[in-house]
């Protein structure tokens, strides 16, 4: 069996090798053509790139990186937006722009961690449930995912985050715990229909092991919707994480978080309106960017298929 697999692989490589890079480049060009047909997707992509760059290089791109922690400067407290403080300062003199950028950093980190854990778990569970369609394994996995989907995700995440200690780590755990079922359900639907395709049956007849069929035959055919959903989900995770931190269950002060900044700012309305409006706008623009980008990815994968 081992033997056969190795042989198959070399054969495939032999076919691809001569023009592997040019094929790769062609693929990129073609996908970029499909992606850039919609100007909104390009706008989304630029927002996403900008936000990611800001997040990565936050200490170098913000005017006052030290303001993202417990910093006090009463002389410049409550300044309106100006040339020195682009988006104004809060009642203890911290620059709102710097804090927003650092908050974006935390929010993006959270989205990445949540999706990096939830997506593989959800996908593998969905694969297994779909492969063992209408067996006890299918029933157990799918009914458990039904239970998780039976409460509004925000409520469950709030409940989990609340019984644990309120911090970033536990907020991530809470969101991850309620995120996997969506992927399980989606992959389950695809896997349970792909398992009857001829190429899977052929592999089975050749004596391929279950894990080979699951990961080498079925999984590659489920991946593009999974990636599409991931691109669209970044925005949702951002909403949920902002909501958690709005209630005080995310990142704890003095570390900034977007929801927390909006909730703090709303206490100083209407005098210090910039404290509340700008973090809120940052949330909206970031999520909008990721949603437009996700839509673009979906259209791209659909039309290039």
């Amino acid at each position, binding site marked *: 069996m081992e033997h056969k697999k190795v042989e198959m692989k070399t054969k495939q490589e032999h076919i691809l090798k001569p023009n592997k890079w040019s094929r790769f480049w062609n693929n990129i060009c073609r996908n970029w053509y499909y992606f850039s047909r919609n100007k*909104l997707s390009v706008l989304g992509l630029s927002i996403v790139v900008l936000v990611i760059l800001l997040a990565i290089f936050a200490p170098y791109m913000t005017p006052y990186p030290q303001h993202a922690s417990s910093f006090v400067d009463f002389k410049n407290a409550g300044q309106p937006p100006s040339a020195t403080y682009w988006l104004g300062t809060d009642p203890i003199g911290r620059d709102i722009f710097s804090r927003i950028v650092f908050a974006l950093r935390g929010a993006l980190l959270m989205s990445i961690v949540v999706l990096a854990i939830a997506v593989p778990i959800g996908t593998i569970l969905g694969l297994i449930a779909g492969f063992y369609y209408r067996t006890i394994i299918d029933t157990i996995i799918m*009914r*458990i995912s*039904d*239970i*998780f989907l*039976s*409460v*509004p*995700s*925000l*409520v*469950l995440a*709030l*409940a*989990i*985050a*609340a*019984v*644990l200690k309120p911090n970033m780590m536990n907020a991530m755990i809470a969101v991850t715990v309620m995120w996997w079922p969506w992927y399980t*359900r*989606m992959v*389950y*639907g695809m896997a349970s229909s792909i398992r009857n395709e001829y190429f899977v049956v052929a592999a089975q007849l050749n004596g391929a092991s279950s894990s080979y069929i699951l990961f080498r035959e079925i999984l590659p055919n489920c991946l593009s*919707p999974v990636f599409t*959903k991931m691109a669209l989900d970044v*925005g949702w995770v951002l*909403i949920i994480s*902002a*909501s958690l931190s*709005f*209630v*005080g*269950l995310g990142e704890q002060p003095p570390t900034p978080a977007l*929801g927390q900044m*909006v909730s703090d700012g*709303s206490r100083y*309305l*209407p005098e210090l*309106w910039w404290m*509340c*409006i700008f973090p*809120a706008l940052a*949330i*909206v623009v970031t*999520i*909008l960017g990721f*949603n*437009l980008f996700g839509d673009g990815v979906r259209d791209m994968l659909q039309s290039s298929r």
Partner: protein
Amino acid sequence: MKLGQFILRRLLLGIFVIIGLSILIFTISRVIPGDPARLALGPRAPVEVVEQLRQELYLDKSLPVQYWIWLTNVMKGDFGRSLVTRRSVVVDIREYLPATLELVFFTAIIMVFLAILLGAVAARNKDKWVDSLIRIFAYVGVSIPAFVLAVFFILIFGYAWPILPVLGRLSSQLSIPRVTGFMVLDALIAGKLNIAWDAFKHLILPAFALALGPAFQEARITRSSMVDNMNKDYISAERGYGFSEKIIMFKYLLRPSLIPTVSVMGMDIAATIGNAFLVELIFNWPGISRYGINAMLYKDLNAISGTVLIIGLVFVLTSIIVDIIVSFLDPSIRLRGIREGENGT
């Protein structure tokens, strides 16, 4: 009848889900680090008192036994006592739930109205500026969390242009005897129109904050399914018969086009119950969500499990009702008991 079978199956699944949810909630509330009895009494309580409470709460028994005791109590409608309000959780829920249901109900009405109206307008004016405008609003609507919209509303209607009340359910000088807990309904029962109007005005902003985002998205769905159906043969046939566009639109085109909208709307209304958590907080709305948040911040386990279970119940009931509505719209369910194109994402 096939429809009966369909509803029965949904109900059984709903019951199963609720039982599973109760296990999940129980696990969450018991597996947390720390001793619930110690948590309830605080660090300075003497050991004997803590031990006594542990026995009262059956914390010395094994987990399955604890679950069974908890479940039988819940079945009897006893979630235990809230640590914050010092009252029975059921009494608290009974007091706060109607406010949330009232809000969710109005949100749903706004959603239905906007989704159908805007969707039809966009489909009629396909690729014109109205259509583009609704598309832009839909993009922004998906990207704007309900609580951010609520904060914007407070800023606009609380400070810049104060034409609507932004806090609470009723102006402070008014009061109304509680009959159903639905403020507008109570006022109408008492025959006091001015109070009903006041309560209604308090509803507008929170309900719109919850409804606007999803409504535009649903309008998009209505629009695209109407556009799809517009090119079907039966519509051309009706045009050939000389029916007016209005009759075609509202009598023949709308009903089949609403199936996907209603399915999505059901999920959105259910999600509204979750979003209401934050919006109620912002508008100082005395609903179950605000109660739940307070419970969560004070680690009030009985209240948390009660709230989450009740919300799960409302959620499951909503989805069953939506399925029944969809089955009336979609003959393939009524006749065969299954939905076509299940497993859609």
